[in-house]
Each structure stands twice: as C-alpha cells, then as structure tokens.
C-alpha cells in the first residue's frame, strides 16, 4: 500500500508540474491509461482536464521522444524516463532539437513491463487488472489472481539499466533512484556469437524472411529523423528496390544499424514495435558494444560529445593497422 501511495503522490506531482508549465508550451506529451490494464497510451496534454489523465507506472513503455524532430519549432513538454532521456540527449548533441524548445518532466523509473514476456505466461486478453509492487506483478484474471515475479516480466533493457534517472530534465518528479543494473555483460550477444557463422547467417535468414517491410522499426526509432527522405524509399540514390526479397529486407536492417552507429541509445523501440518479433536490437547492441570497445563511446550520455565516426585520431589506440597481419 505504501508503494501505491508513493505512486499516487508521484502522479499528483507530475500533474501539478505539467499544469504549471502549460502556459509556456504548445502541449505536453505524456502517458494515460490505455485500453486495458497492461497498456498505457501516449496523450497530448493541452488543458488541466487532459492533465488529470496523466499517469506514470510500469506500463509506460513508449519512448515519447520519437517524432520530436518533426515537432521542431513548437515548444513541447515531454515526460521522459531515464532511458528516454538519452534519446533527448542524442538529439540535442546532433542539434536536431533545440533545448530551449523543450520542457522536460523527468521520471526516475525502476523498470517497465515487457508485454511479450507476460504473453508467454498468460493470455493477456483476459487480464482485468494489474498491480505492480516491489517484487511482483499481480494480474487479475477471470479465474483468480496470478502472481508473476517482477524480474521475469520486466523489459530486458530495464534489467541492465544504468540510467534510471533522466540525464536531462527541467522538473524531476519523485525521488532519484540508485542504478540497479551492473555493467552490461552482453550475455545475449556472447551467446549468439558462439554460434558458427553459418548458423548466424541462417538465423538472420529465417528472421529476415519473416519481415513484412512495414518499417515500424524505423518509424518507432527516435533517432530516425530522416523518415520523410529515408534512403529505403529513395529512387536516387537507389539503395533498395521495392521487391520483397530476403536480401532487400535484410539490407534494410543492416542499413538501419549502420545509420545508428554511434547514435543508438538502445531504447529498444524498434524491436518492441516489430509486429513479427524480429530481434533487430541485437544488431544495434553489437554495434554499440564494438563502439564502446573501440572508441570508449556511449551515445546519448553527453550532449557535448563528438560522435566517434565524425572524427579521428592520427594514431588510433584500438585499431591495429590492417594488412600487416596476414
């Protein structure tokens, strides 16, 4: 119950804070209750009445910074979690949004739910209510409550979260949290890389063959700011054809990963939004791991940082000169 009270107090603080800023912004992007107890939905808050709908809990999975670039020129209020704030930082670093146009409501966050994980444990269409407490998630089902350990249904990114507190914010709502996640061990990547190249190639072949080229991954990505002129749709340069071949689908994902090199904050929206459940975040995690190793660089942490691929050193510390080795 104490947890509930704390949650309610935080929502009240958020609403009050949003209302106080309403005169200064065109609108505020936040979360409201969705169509069932496990879903939150993004809303635009323009009035006090809208503000009363604002919530913040473990169902607020969406990264609201997506689309921020398209709102350039407007003054926007934005509710962000720790991980979402890294997307904001990255956009600021690339000068794609103006800090002065943003009012950020920072929400320290101890993890959001992964619906896919709940789905393999229960029929989520039957869930009538949900409560998240410190260690467990209590689902109300027609045939009685079902209790799941919270760690089992948290999103993967939350289990390794090192930035529970927003890196940028104008209004910090609630108490700052101590990061729970240790260094990212990349156990998933390590496991995957133990497979032979042929197995890996076949894995992606199967995965990519399921792609329906809906571009949900691209559209959900907060850093895919060039959607309106995306290379995937362009005739000149003609990188991809409209054919639904395995090769084109696969190349699109490679293209997405390469474009996000040094930019991706691993918010995971691409993978979450994929209707076919293709593990595309793995590609980006690989890229990030190598960039960290090569250039000791992490995207979306420092708005003043120089992106590693837009600079160079005369003598690179970690790059051995090629062509000497063989």
């Amino acid at each position, binding site marked *: 119950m104490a947890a509930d009270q704390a949650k309610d107090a935080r929502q009240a603080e958020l609403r009050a804070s949003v209302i106080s800023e309403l005169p200064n912004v065109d609108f505020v992007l936040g979360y409201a209750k969705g169509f069932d107890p496990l879903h939150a939905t993004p809303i635009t808050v323009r009035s006090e009445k809208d503000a009363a709908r604002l919530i913040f809990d473990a169902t607020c999975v969406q990264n609201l910074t997506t689309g921020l670039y398209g709102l350039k020129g407007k003054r926007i209020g934005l509710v962000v979690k720790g991980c979402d704030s890294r997307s904001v930082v990255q956009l600021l670093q690339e*000068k794609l949004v103006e800090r002065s146009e943003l009012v950020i409501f920072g929400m320290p966050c101890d993890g959001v739910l992964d619906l896919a994980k709940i789905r393999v444990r229960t029929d989520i269409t039957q869930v009538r209510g949900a409560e998240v407490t410190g260690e467990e998630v209590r689902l109300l089902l027609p045939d009685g409550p079902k209790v799941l350990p919270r760690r089992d249904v948290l999103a993967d990114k939350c289990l390794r979260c090192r930035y529970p507190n927003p890196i940028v914010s104008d209004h910090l709502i609630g108490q700052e949290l101590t990061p729970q996640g240790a260094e990212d061990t990349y156990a998933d990547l390590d496991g995957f890389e133990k497979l032979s190249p042929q197995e890996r190639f076949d894995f992606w072949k199967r995965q990519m063959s399921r792609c329906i080229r809906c571009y949900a991954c691209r559209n959900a990505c907060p850093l895919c*700011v060039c959607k309106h*002129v995306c290379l995937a749709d*362009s005739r000149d*340069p*003609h990188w991809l054809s409209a054919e639904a071949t395995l090769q084109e689908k696969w190349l699109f994902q490679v293209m997405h990963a390469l*474009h996000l090199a040094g930019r991706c904050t691993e918010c995971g929206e691409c993978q979450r939004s994929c209707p076919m459940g293709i593990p595309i975040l793995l590609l980006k995690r690989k890229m990030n791991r190598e960039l960290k190793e090569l250039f000791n660089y992490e995207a979306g942490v420092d708005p003043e940082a120089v992106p590693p691929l*837009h600079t160079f050193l005369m003598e690179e510390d970690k790059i051995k000169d090629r062509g000497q080795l063989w």
Partner: protein
Amino acid sequence: MRIGVMVCHCGNNIAATVDCEAVAAAAREFPDVVYATDHMYACSDPGQKTIEQTIRDLKLDGVVVASCSPRMHEMTFRRAVERAGLNRYMFEMANIREHVAWISLDRKRNTQKATDLVRMAVEKLRVDRPLTPKSFDVQKRVLIVGGGVAGIQAALDCADGGLDVLLVERKASIGGIMSKLDKTFPTIDCSVCVLGPKMVDAGQNPRITLHTCSEVEEVSGYVGNFEVKIRKRTTYVDWTKCTGCGACQEKCPSRKVPDAFNENISLTTAINIPFPQAIPKRATINAAHCIRLTKGKCGACAKICPTGAIDYEMQDEIITEKVGAIIAATGITLFDHTRLGEYGAGRYPDVVTSLAYERMLSASGPTAGHIKRPSDGREPKTVVFISCVGSRDRSVDRPYCSGFCCMYTAKQAILTRDHIPDSKAFVFYMDIRANGKGYEEFVRRAQEEYAVEYVRGRVAHIYPTAGPDGGQLMVRGADTLLGAQVEVAADLVVLAVGAESSTGAPELAEKLHISYDHYGFFMESHPKLRPVETNTVGIFLAGACQGPKDIPASVAQASAAAGKVLALLSKDKLESDPQIALVQAIRCIGCGKCERTCPFGAIRMRELRDGSKRAEVVETVCQGCGICSVTCPVRAIQLQHFTDSQLLAEVNALCRTWDETTES
C-alpha cells in the same frame, strides 16, 4: 541511351591474354549497347578517329573504352569524345590491361573478367550524367616558400614570365645552404660568386617581393585563388630605414652570440647582418642575446644608427596576400650528428660537420679560409672524412641515400689537400655514388691527382688520444676491401652529414594540404611523370623539399616548377573540376554533419527563410573526396560522377553477372 564499346588490343599487350573479339561480342548483348568493336590501338590517332566517327554516325550518347588504366589515358579519350560533341563525363573506361591482361595468363578467366569489367563500365555509364565545369578568375601571382637556390631560381623564372612573386624566407637573408658553401663540385667554382648575382637579381627585380624573417601562417582557398597569411617576425629594425651600413654591428656590446650562419663555430653580435652578401642587406636583432631586450638597458645600436631604424617595441606582423599558385622550396636541414655516440655525440670539438668545415674553407668564413682545429687553432695535418653520417642508416631511421655527400666529401678532400699541401686526407665510405655529369671523374681526380686515401668501410669508434703535437682523435674502422681493421690518428674529423627534411616541413605540408612521406619530404604527384606537381592543384615543389638533391637538380626542378606555374597562370580563367559534391536540397535535413567532416571547409550551412538549414558546397573549394557523402545520414550530398547510384550500378552489375554465370 545509345552506348558504344571499344575493346583495345593494345598491340599484343592485351590481346595476348584476353580474347578481345569475344569481349566485344559479349558487350553487344549488354543493355543500351548499340555498337561494340575491338581495335588494335584505341589511343592511336586512327583509334580516336574511329571513336569520334562512330559517335557521329551512330548518334551515340556514351562511350566505354576497355583498355589501359584510366590513370593513363582517361583524359585522352575524354577529349576524343568531347571532340565528337559528347560531354566528356559520358565516358567510362574499363582497365583490362594493368588489372587483367598483365596479371594473369589464364585466357579464359581473363576474358570473363574483362567482360565483367566492361559490363560494370556500361552499367555505370547508364547512370552517368553530363557535367559542366565552371570557370573562375585567377590571381596572377605566385608565392614561393623558401629562399634557397631553388626558391630564388623559381622566383626569377616566374618574374621573367611576367608574374608577381612573393618570396618568403624564414631566415634574415635569402641564399639558403648554397650561400654557406665555399666551392661547388665538380667544377670547384666559388659558390657565392655564382649564387650572389641571382640573389641580387631577386632583391632588385620589381616583380619580386621579398619577405625574409617570415613564415607562412595559414593557407586557405584553392588553385588560382589562394589566400595566404604570412607572419613577418619582428627584427626590431625598421627595414625601410636601415641601409645595411653595419655601424650597429660594430658598436653592439653583446659579442658572444653563436653565429648561426657560420654553423655556430664562431661568435657574432646580437644585432647583425648575417653575411656580407646578404639580400636584403639589413640588420636584425637577436632578441635572446640583446642586452636592451633582455635586461632593459644598453641601446647602443639605437644611438649609433644614422637613420634611426632601431625600434625595440616592434611586434610581429601578419600580412594577408592573394596568390594563384604556390611553390614549396623549403629545402633541407642536415642530420644532427650528436645523436651518434660512436662519433662522440658532439663532445669532441675537433669532430665537425661538413657544413661547418665548409665555413672554415670559405674565405669569408670565420677563419678567413684557413683550416684550423676548433680546439687549439692548429692547422690539421691529417683530416678524416666519414661519409654516410645519417644516411643509409636504418638504426637512426634514415635508410635513404642523401645523394650529394660522396661528392662534397671528394670536394672537401681536394680542397684540404689544396689548402694544406703536406696534409693527408682519408675518406671512409660505404659506396661511392657519383652519378652526375663529370662526377665520377671528379672523385677519380680526388683519388688519383690529389692522393686522397679512400677506405671502404664504416667507422666504428672515435676516441681521443695523445698525439705528438697535442690531442688527436683515433678513428677506428674496418677496411672491408682489405678485410682488416684500420686506425687513423686524425687531427680533424669531418662528418659528411646527410639530408633531412627541413624543420617544420610536416606542419607546412599540413597548412598547404599536401602530403609528405615518413621523413617529412613532400610527396610529388607522380614519381616519374609529375615530379614537380603535388596532389593539391596549384601547389608545386622545387628543390630538396621533395627529396635530397644537389644544386643542379634543385635548380632544374625550380625552373620546371616555374614553368608549370607559368603555364597554369597563363590562362585568365581556370575551370573547376565538376566532380565535386552536390547537395540535393530537397533531401538535406540540415544536420550539419557534412560540414563537420569536410577536410577543406568546403561546406557551409545556409539558413532558409523558414529558419531551417541546408548544406551548401563551395564549388571551387571542394576537392571531390566524397567523405561527406558517407557522413550524410540521408546521402543527400552526392559526389558527382561517383554518386551512390553510380557506384551501386557497378556493384549490382557485378552481382548480377555472377548470378547469371553461376546459378546454372
């Protein structure tokens, strides 16, 4: 589109290992190809005529020639298609000689590979677009960096050709190393007597502006329109008033200043004119040794100066000049022998460098032409010369041959025997490199006529020993011809130090955007065919800055560079290469990443009326590297003639060929 393909036999060069008829036959099946033939020599006059005629007859709008490397004949064929009325960029070349015929004898595979390469070229040509160069005005002025013999020669030639010349020299006088030499090989004529008149000419020519005590601070712009900032270091003497009378030098009380012109073997005054023939003959104050500037009192020179030229408050000045071309003629410095412990690392005063010895030999030098040991002033009777000091020596990272040391060593040995007839001269050498006109004969004269003793071998060790008339130096080395160890008790040891790139050469290269090698020597554009050009258009090389050279070679290259500059600036307008980056404004999202990565500052961000930004390429500054293309997240900036679509066409052409030839 109507494409014509010509496959060249290059005599037997290609046809011996590639079935040219088969390649032409295969090319006829490629999309848009309306004509394909093979020819004995495509680059010959009849070959080019055939191309022109076919373009006219068949109304072709693109041509592929499969022959040698485009680095060889691309321009030849571009001009040919242009004569027939096509845009010169509607031409592609497939390299089937260097990359196919010459590297493998397997005729079947070679023919397949040549066909693939022709197909790539055809596919690229299908997405090529005509490009038109833009013309721009040029500055008919040239900047020459370095006032040694190469710089002076280049300046005189350019001025003769009618160009205004800015000659920038770091030291107080032009003349360079040659002005320090006593005599020159192989004629033994007086160095400064040959150079002097040229220096005077350079000083008096109305078209030449000398900037001595000056250095290039910054270079921007492009061929025809460089903007150069020159830092004129303070001399504390107003040169417009100074007459070079030398009265100040006589009065200056600070008389213990090492004389750099005399390789620091003598002393001079804090205010001085470096040498009698200096151009411009003006005094400068050495601030580190001037009593007035270090301690605040004195002022003797200001009191004596008849024109009131001394100005202790003088500051560095930076001037900006516009020039159309630049010649780098920064020359060399000499290897620092104090790095070598076996020769005493500079501890023995009687081990001197060849250039210091040259000053001793010179009648205008500190000893007035009498050879004296620096330690006790005695005339040496045994002089040992050691060649290859800092040349051909991997242990000090100087594996190259400096080229001129063998010759000046022979000259100095001859002069030694000349000045002191009862002396003995020994030369320790590795090999004699005397490959110039009259050079070998000159070395022979030293050996035969002047009885200079040549010992083939390296010196292992020099150590002091007590001689009959005071201290001597024992030179111990091997005689590899005799297979024995030799020891010579020498009164004086002269080290034939090798050449190194001039101090600060890499920094200058970076300012000029030209490349330099591991040793700091500037890189020519092509080692054989473009030896005075650099890879940056409008910047040329003269003299030893490009690699160690003796005087005749430096002068020859200087005149060559001047000729290149005169040819370049003989035009009133230059054409810019259209193979540069171009922004598709409709795709640009204004993120500015291209601006950040452009090495030439050729990209500007332009603000639109709605406040959004678009990248814009400054056409004349862009060099066409394409770094921006890859940086751009939407590939909105594309390098013309190497666009994504064009390169993709080549990649796709290959992948498709493979699918067709291997899937069956």
